[in-house]
C-alpha cells in the first residue's frame, strides 16, 4: 500500500439498504449521505450542516441512529442501513407519521425525516417516554420551523397510539 499516491481508488462496497442487498463503487471516504442520495437515489436524508449538528441526515446504521454525513462509506461496508424511505415497514412508522401530520410536527419538512428516525429510535428503546426523554432523544435534531412543541406532542401521541394498539 502506497499512501503517497495522489488519488485513491474506488472500491466495491456491499451493504444492505432498506432490506435490499446493494453494491456500489465508491471512494472509501465518500460520505454515506452522498452515496445514499447520489448513487442510490434515496434523497430522504438531507444535508443541513455536514458536521453532525443538525440531524437532518440521520439514518439507522445497524439499528443505531447515526448522522450519515459523518460516516465514511467504507465504515458501512457489510452493515445494514435504513433510511426514511425504508421505514414504512417499521411498526412505529404509521403512528409516527400520522401523529406528525395531526400535531403539526412537520412544517417545511426538511428536518422531518431525521426527526422521525430519531423519534423511532427513541420509541424503540422507551415504551412510554416522558417529555424529558423526548427532549433528550431529539436533542441532536434541529428544527427551525416548529419551535419543537408540536414535535414533542407528535412523539408522545405516537407512543400512546402504540400502547393502545
Amino acid at each position, binding site marked *: 500500500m502506497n499512501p503517497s499516491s495522489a488519488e485513491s481508488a474506488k472500491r466495491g462496497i456491499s451493504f444492505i439498504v432498506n432490506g435490499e442487498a446493494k453494491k456500489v463503487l465508491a471512494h472509501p471516504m465518500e460520505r454515506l449521505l452522498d452515496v445514499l*442520495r*447520489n448513487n442510490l437515489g434515496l*434523497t*430522504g*436524508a*438531507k*444535508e*443541513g*450542516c*455536514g*458536521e453532525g*449538528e*443538525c440531524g*437532518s441526515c440521520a439514518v439507522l446504521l445497524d439499528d443505531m441512529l447515526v448522522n450519515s454525513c459523518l460516516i465514511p462509506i467504507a465504515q458501512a461496508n457489510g452493515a445494514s442501513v435504513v*433510511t*426514511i*424511505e425504508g421505514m*414504512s415497514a417499521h411498526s412505529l412508522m404509521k403512528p*409516527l*407519521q400520522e401523529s*406528525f*401530520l*395531526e*400535531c*403539526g*410536527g*412537520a*412544517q*417545511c*419538512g*426538511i*428536518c*422531518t*425525516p431525521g426527526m*422521525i428516525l430519531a423519534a423511532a429510535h427513541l420509541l424503540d428503546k422507551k415504551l412510554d417516554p416522558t417529555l424529558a426523554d*423526548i*427532549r*433528550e432523544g*431529539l*436533542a441532536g*435534531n*434541529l*428544527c*427551525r*420551523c*416548529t*419551535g*419543537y*412543541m*408540536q*414535535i*414533542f406532542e407528535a412523539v408522545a401521541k405516537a407512543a400512546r397510539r402504540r400502547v393502545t394498539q
Partner: protein
Amino acid sequence: MTVRHIIGASVPRKEGWDKVTGAARYVDDMALPGMLHGATVRSTIARGKIKQIHFGPGVDWNEYVVVSAKDIPGKNCIALILDDQPCLASEFVNHPEEPILLLAHPDRPKLRKAVEAVSIEYDSLPALHTIEESERQSTIIWGRDNTFKNFLVEKGDVDAIWKKAAHIVEGEYFTGAQEQLYIENNGVIAAFDPKNGVTVWGSLQCPYYVHKALITLFALPEEKVRVVQMETGGAFGGKEEYPSMIAGHAALLAMKSGRPVKIVYDRMEDMAATTKRHPSRTRHRTAVSKDGRILGGEIEFTIDGGAYATLSSVVLSRGTIHAGGAYYWPNVRIRTKAVATNAPPHGAFRGFGAPQSLFAMERHMDRIAQVVGISPVEVRRRNFLKSGQTTTTEQTIKENIDLDRLLKRALELSDYAAKKKRFAEKNKAGTNRKGIGIAAFLHGAGFTGSGERYLNSLVGAEAGADGIVRVLVSSAEFGQGTNTVLCQIAAEALGLPYENVSIAQPDTSVVPNSGPTVASRTAMIVGKLVQSAARGIKETLTKTGLLHEDYSPEQFRAACKEYIATHGALKSYARYEAPPDVFWDDEKYRGEAYAAFAWAVYVAEVTVDLTTYSVTVDDFVALQEVGRVLHPVLAEGQITGGVAQAIGFALYENVVWQDGRMMNNQMTNYIMPASMDLPPIRVFFEENGNVHGAHGAKGIGELPMDGPAPAILNAVEDATGVRFCSIPLLPEDLFEALRPEFNEQAVPSSVRGIA
C-alpha cells in the same frame, strides 16, 4: 351539502404526507442529465479594487467552466429596488464574500480545489463596519452620505411637549444580526437554451422576484424566463431576495456551458455569504406625565443595511411604522435611516424591522414605568391604543380592539401577579434569580402603505373535468402552510370537500403573479383573492345553468365536465383591489399603514443562574388577536416556531463579526435553541375578525418574532435588577454586568481557539 367548517378546522397539510415519508422533493433532491455543479469565488476583503485574477497551477482549468461579469448578457445587477448590487463584482468589491467568479464542473468535489486555486489581488480601501462608523462618514462607501434611505414621521407638536413633561425618559437599545438558519441551505438548478431561454428550479419564497431579476440580468423577454419553486426547507425571509443572486449565477454558468447547473451552498457558505437580520440601534426620548402617560417623544431608529441597498428601505419602513408600538402617541417624531457598511447585505427576516424597533419600545416601556414609579403592567394599560385613536402615522384604529382585556387575560394565563410576588420573595437567597416580564405589541399585516396597490396581485383558480379545482398562485409554501390554508379557503368558497381542491406548484409559466410570499400577507390578501377566484368558478357554472345552489361534489364534477367539453378550460382570476378607505401618503409617511393589525401580549418567565450567568426561559405565554384562525394547528405552529426563533434572537444567536465577515459560520458555533432549551410555549388566540381578510384572517407569520425578546429582557431585569438594553444577551454579558468587580488576575494575553 356535505362540507361545512373547513375554515377553522385542522385539515391535513396538503404536502404533509410527502414530508413525513421523505418523498417531498427539494432542489438538492433533483438532478438533470448532464448537470454540472457550480461554485462561487468570493472576495476575501471587505472593500477594495480588484487588480488581478490568477488561475493557479495544479488544476486542469480546461475541465471547468468559468464565468465572470463579462459573460453577463444584460445588466450586471440583481434587479430589486435600486439595482445597485452587482451579480458579479467586476471592478470593486464592497463586502467580504462578494461573488466575483463562478466555476462549474461535473464532479462537485472537484470544485473546492479550483476555488482555492483562484487568487485575487486587490488594492484595499478603507471599510466601515458599524452604524457609528458609517454615520461618521470618514469615508463614503455608498451614495453621497452612506445612507440608503431616511424616513420621517411627524405627528402633533413634539417640540412643545418637553416643558409639559413630568419626566423625560431616555434610552438606547441595540439588536444584533440574526441568521435565518433555515435547515435547507440556498440552492437552485438552472438550465438554458437559446430557444426557450432560462429555467430555474429553486428553494425560494418569491418566484416573480427571481423572474424579474433574471429578465434584467439576461435581457430576455418575460416569457423566456421560467422560475419554478421546489419544496423549500425553511425560508423566514432568507429566501426572499437572495435566490435571485444564486439563480443568476447558476443560469450564467448554464448559458456558458450549455448544460444544466446546480448550485447548492454548504452551510458555511450559506451563513457567511447570504443575508441576515439588520442590526439596529434605537434611541428613545419620551415626555411622560406624572401618572405615566406618554405625552410625546422622539424615536430615532437606525439599521445597518450592509453593502448594498437591497430591501433595506422596506425593512426600515416596517421598523419605522412599528417603532411606537401598541401605544397612543399624541405627539411624536420618528426619524429613521438605513446606513451602509461593508458587510454582506442584510435582508429580509421574519418581522422585517419590527422586531428591532419593538424591542426598543417594549424595553423602554419598562424604563418609563420605573422612572414614573408604576408597574410595567400599569404603564402599558395607561398608554394602550384604543379603537378610534390614531397610530403614529395617524391611522385611525377602526377595529374593535381591547388591549386592556388582552393584557388581563395574558396576566391570568401566566399567573403573573402571584409569580411576581413569589419571585421577589425567593430572590432574596440562593444562587438563582427568577423574573417575569411582559411585552405588548402589534404587527401590521400585508405590505406597508401603498405596497399592496403597487403589487397588484393576480390569483387564479382552474377547474378540471374531474371536478378538482386547482389554485393558481405564486405564493410559496415553505412550511407556514400556504398550500393548506389557500386550499381551505377555496374549498369553503366552492362548498367542496378540502380533498377536491389542490394547488399548483409555483411555476411562473403556469401561475400568475400573486405577489411575494412575505409580510404575513398570504392568508389575508392572497387568501381573499383565492376566495374571489374560487367564487368566480362557481358563478361561471351557475350562470351557464350547469350548476344549481346546494350542489354535491358529484354535481360539481358533472358541471365542470360539461363546461370544459363545450368551452374548453374553466378558469377564473381575481385581482387585488385596494379597499376604498385605505389612504396612504408616501411623502409624509402618513395614513393607513396597514389594512389590519394583529395584537398580542406575551409573558416570559425566566431563571437567571448566578453560577453560570445563563438565562433559561421557564414558561412562555403567547396570547394574540389575529382575526380568524383559519387552521388552529398551523396557526399554533407559526407562533411556537416564531417564539422559538425570537428566544434565539434574545438569548442565543450571536453573529461574531470580524471586518465585515461572519466568523462563526457553522452550526456548532452559531447557537440556535434546540429541543432542550425551550420552555413550554403556551399559545392562545382571541379571534376578533378582520373585514379585509379572507374569513376575517389577519397575518400571523411575523407577529411572534416581535414580542419575546423584550418580554425576556424585561423578565431578566425583574430577576436581577440590572437593565440590559442589547440583544443577544449572552451569559458573558450578564456576567460582566453582575460582577464588574471580578478580577481574574492571571489571564494570559495569547489568544488561541479552543476546539
